């Protein structure tokens, strides 16, 4: 019994220690404005994803740069521990208990949020979904979702694939972790176009968990099992696309010629690779919508009506030249 208690205490200590190591951006703890009573600042709890990749880094940095003290906000940034939904729900609950004014939520997983959102609703705290949606999509539980539209972006990629395909071509999809709403949405958009264009032939799909080295390992085997007969790769994020590039080169093929790789996100690294001709198509999934979010927060607090889905406009890059042109002012 004693030992178990000790173990739990040690674990709790360990978790808090690492948490300390991670959230340099946090303003919680020791901040005199905590609690919000009587102060002018609006307290915003941001249940975030945390380190996941360059896109996420840009998005969350942009949020933190927008919701500043100067702009009249006290942003509490709570990234997930190792993309774990449990840690997000815990953070969400404590924001509700603290009584923050608004909660911004980027869910690592789409399902399982109803109970938490209902609690926030009872406490009359408006919740705004940032980027990631929830499943089932109960629009009554949140104010609005601000995101670039994954379905639209993925459709754009698929249309580009059709244009590159000719009479017939084989394609392979590198997916994010199964069950994540982004993955489902990007698949939906792609499949809508692909099903209408039978010349696009699917040879398979595997998850590479958004990661470069897994994508490399996955795709080198996929190439072998298909005797290199794959012309197009749909990588659902930049990191995996860059992994696929390495697998293609490893196999003695030329990316952009033998195998054309399209990715979604549009990070600086991906645009560099596109400028070098390694990637063939990059669809931006615009992370910089802090201003939009700020606008929505003000409106929500003022009780104004807001659309239940606000689409952030995105662009696409389909040539090395376009990428090279965009690179100098790329913030992420």
């Amino acid at each position: 019994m004693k030992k178990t208690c000790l173990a739990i205490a040690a674990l709790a200590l360990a978790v808090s220690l690492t948490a300390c190591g991670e959230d340099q951006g946090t303003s919680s703890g020791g901040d005199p404005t905590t609690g919000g009573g009587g102060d002018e600042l609006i307290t915003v709890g941001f249940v975030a994803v945390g380190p996941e990749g360059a896109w996420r880094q840009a998005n969350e940095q942009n949020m933190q740069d927008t919701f500043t003290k100067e702009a009249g906000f006290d942003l509490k940034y709570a990234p997930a521990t190792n993309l774990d939904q449990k840690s997000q729900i815990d953070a969400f609950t404590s924001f509700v208990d603290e009584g923050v004014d608004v909660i911004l939520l980027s869910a690592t997983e789409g399902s399982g949020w109803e109970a938490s959102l209902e609690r926030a609703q009872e406490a009359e705290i408006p919740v705004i979904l940032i980027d990631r949606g929830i499943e089932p999509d109960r629009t009554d539980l949140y104010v609005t979702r601000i995101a670039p539209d994954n379905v639209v972006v993925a459709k754009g990629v698929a249309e580009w694939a059709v244009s590159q395909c000719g009479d017939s071509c084989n394609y392979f999809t590198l997916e994010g972790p199964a069950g994540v709403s982004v993955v489902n949405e990007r698949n939906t958009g792609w499949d809508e176009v692909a099903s209408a264009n039978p010349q696009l032939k699917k040879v398979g799909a595997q998850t590479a968990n958004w990661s470069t080295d897994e994508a490399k390992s996955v795709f080198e085997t996929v190439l072998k099992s298909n005797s290199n007969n794959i012309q197009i790769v749909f990588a659902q994020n930049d990191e995996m696309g860059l992994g696929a590039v390495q697998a293609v080169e490893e196999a003695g093929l030329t990316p952009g010629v033998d195998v054309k790789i399209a990715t979604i996100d549009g990070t600086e690294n991906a645009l560099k690779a596109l400028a070098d001709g390694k990637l063939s198509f990059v669809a931006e999934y615009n992370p910089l919508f802090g201003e939009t979010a700020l606008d929505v927060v003000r409106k929500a607090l003022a009780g104004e009506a807001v659309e239940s889905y606000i689409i952030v406009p995105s662009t696409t890059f389909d040539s090395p030249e376009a990428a090279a042109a965009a690179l100098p002012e790329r913030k992420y």
Partner: protein
Amino acid sequence: MKSSASPPDHPGSTSGPGTTPTKPGAVTGWLKRLFRLPWAGAIAAIIVLLAIDLMADSSYLAVSYNSSTGHLVGNLIDIMRAAAPVLMIATGMTLVIATAGIDLSVGSVMAAAGAVSMEFLSNNQNAASASAALSALALALALGTVLGLANGLLVTAVGLQPFISTLVMMLAARGLAKVITGGQNARATSEPFRFIANGYVLGLPVVFLIALVIAASVALVCRRTALGMMIEAVGLNPRAARLAGLRSRGLILTTYVVSGLLAAIAGVFATASVMVVDVSNTGYLMEMDAILAVVIGGTSLAGGKFSLGGAAAGALLIATLDKTVLFLGVPASATPAFKAAVIIALCLLQSQRARSWLASIKASRRSRADQTEAVAA
């Protein structure tokens, strides 16, 4: 009847003409010895998986020579490369488990070691030089050693349970990786560093050769010196080992340091492969692969007798399994279930209880047969 016809000077020969009488016995004896090895199951499972792959594609095992790159190319080569990091951490994990401990931090140490090398190279003006690559390598190994030492001290000097100590380190080391890269996925360019994971020597992937040499050296050191026996003694009966004059603390500390160092090497392998450290995903859940490899290799989690050869076989099996899942195109959502099924089947085959249960079924069948025979007689 045939045996009576065989020449009288070969009384033992019951086989047909043309075969020497001793050979079949020798071969079956050799086979029997092979099956008694703790890791025979792992080897058998690898063979079964490769056979399945071969059924899916008859050229699966083909290894060809790519004249443009000078490398050998093939699925077997890919399996070797994928096995290298697992082989490293499984080797360290075997030693730790032999002392009746466990090291849950290896995956996170991989991330931390990868992070420090990538961060160093990305900020280095001379990143392309061999000396920069060597420095990055040295930094990674030093960090792994320090983290392993911290684990070992928590266990031996502080007296925390290994599970708790290394669980703390599992969280702390990944946190450290994030601090090192500022939360980003750090990437760098350095041909010499990249060579560690992607290069070829004599047509074979250098990463596998390095891993093999290191694993073999560890095994050699354990078996050619008294280190292996001492580690086993500490794992089997720590009090008796202490009274026999063994410096248990030093031995246990050593195993955690070795485990940390080998995890750092695995981290270098994983990051050098793509020249990116993914602070959330590099080494994620790799401790589970390592523990599985150790158990598949016939080393008991209770500590004591260990088999580094078994752990190597286990690491190869895990790599083969991963690659087979991809090659067969098992749907992504079914992959974990597929892997679990294979591993459970293997563990069942190796379980003493399951084996004796099978044996007792066989025995009761035989005795029933004997009885019916007796009745018939």
